[in-house]
């Protein structure tokens, strides 16, 4: 048996995971997301990634970004490398796709701040 802490929400449920023949038994979860998390952790752990990308604007040098879904943990550092090659040259909107379908995961990297507001605000 394995114990895990669910990272799905701030409750942080302590999960017990037991691998039976061809089933995975999960207990300790307060919601269905806990079970999904535990099964993923055994089979293919996934995480969301948040970071920033460079911009061409001196007043707002960084734009915050995140993946709009979770990617396999093995892609986290490769994605960081990719993110750090990007330079945004226009006022990106919140939600705008910055990197599409990273590592063929179907997940995009999207902007999480509104650069128009930031540029207007700091003027």
């Amino acid at each position: 048996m394995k114990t895990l802490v669910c990272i799905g929400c701030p409750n942080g449920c302590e999960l017990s995971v037991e691998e039976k023949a061809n089933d995975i038994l999960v207990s300790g979860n307060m919601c269905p997301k806990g079970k999904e998390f535990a099964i993923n952790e055994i089979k293919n752990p996934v995480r969301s990634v948040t970071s920033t990308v460079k911009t061409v604007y001196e007043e707002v040098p960084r734009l915050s970004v995140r993946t709009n879904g979770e990617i396999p943990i093995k892609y986290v550092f490769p994605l960081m490398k990719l993110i750090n090659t990007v330079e945004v040259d226009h006022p990106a909107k919140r939600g705008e796709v910055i990197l599409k379908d990273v590592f063929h995961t179907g997940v995009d990297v999207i902007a999480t701040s509104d650069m128009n507001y930031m540029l207007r605000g700091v003027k």
Partner: protein
Amino acid sequence: MDNYDVVVLGGGPAGLAAALASNECGGKTLIIEREKLLGGILKQCIHDGFGLIRFKEKLSGPEYSGRYIDMVLEKDIDVETSTFVTEIKKQGEEFLITIVNSKYGVKKIKAKAIVLANGCRERTWRQVFIQGTRPAGIYTAGTAQYFVNMMGYLPFKKCVVLGSGDIGLIMARRLTLEGCTVEGVYEAKSTPSGLSRNIAQCLDDFSIPLHLSHTVTRVFGDDRLNAVEISKVDEKMIPIPGTEKIVECDGLVLSVGLIPENEIAESLNIKIDRKTKGPFVDQNLMTGLEGVFSCGNALHVNDLVDYVSESGEIAGENAAKYAKEHKDRKLIRMNADSKFLYAVPQYIDINSLNQKVIAYFRSRDIRDKMTVKLLYDGQVIFSRKYNKLKPPEMERITFDISKLNLKDNGEINIVMEG
């Protein structure tokens, strides 16, 4: 002179929610923010996990505050950014606020009610006892967060994190992702301060060790930090001689706690609760001074922004209502016993039309299988079972006082039973 019903000080999530609620109740509202942009500390909290309760989505800090900024800018709410409040005076029923900014120079504003939403500040190394020189390379977690996330600077190559607060844990992961080595997180207490999920996703995922009952006792370096001395501590958090070890590093990140920002409250002689370090308030979040409300991290340090927004709404709505008309308050005490770190509100206004009380509390220790009860006059007026209570996790309860027939010589006691 400009006249407002409600002036909100601070444009973070608490202030934004307060302004929206005040506007919704018909209050003429102004937000005063000293920084260039609205959004408060969430501007730099680029990680996700915000808004699960509010929006049922896992948003990052800037997305969460961005949604509120958009709503505020759409409404008829005045906003003054890069603006400093130099003085607030109560004149009869009204407040006279002096502000300074580059647009007007010095300007005076009148308000019928004020909402304090100034957030909190971080404890710095002056508030923790570390011996040695004072070299560069020592930052609070929030300052390190600002450098990395807003400016794009990596302030060190190898660092040690002191304190296991959430911002420290989040920064341990962030620095690691950007290529910095985080040697370890050291916590003087025997239990972590941050949420379990942050230990899991920020430390365990990257094999960053968490050393409980350890602290930094000395720093080394002339211009730049080059090493720290770590010691084990006893139950009283006193370093144990002979346990010292030296860790070479060029950075020390302090995540040793947050304190509500209360300069303005203090200048108005508003009474501060020793436990929360924020003002005493009633269920409408009105402080000891009639017409002044407090919310968000200025009231008590929150771990979830969703509750910050909720408290902003309560304060903003009641400030607007107060500005229209108000009766005298009749306050009774709400006391939490010593098993609690604190409970908010500390008072109930039994004359108030608001009979639905939202209360927040934190347990002093980690406890299993507890029942939290509210007692009035020997009667149990609320009871809830908890599987686990932990100090880092704030709990929220609601109860209705309309049928209780509360008397002005009574008091409510919050107790915890095993």
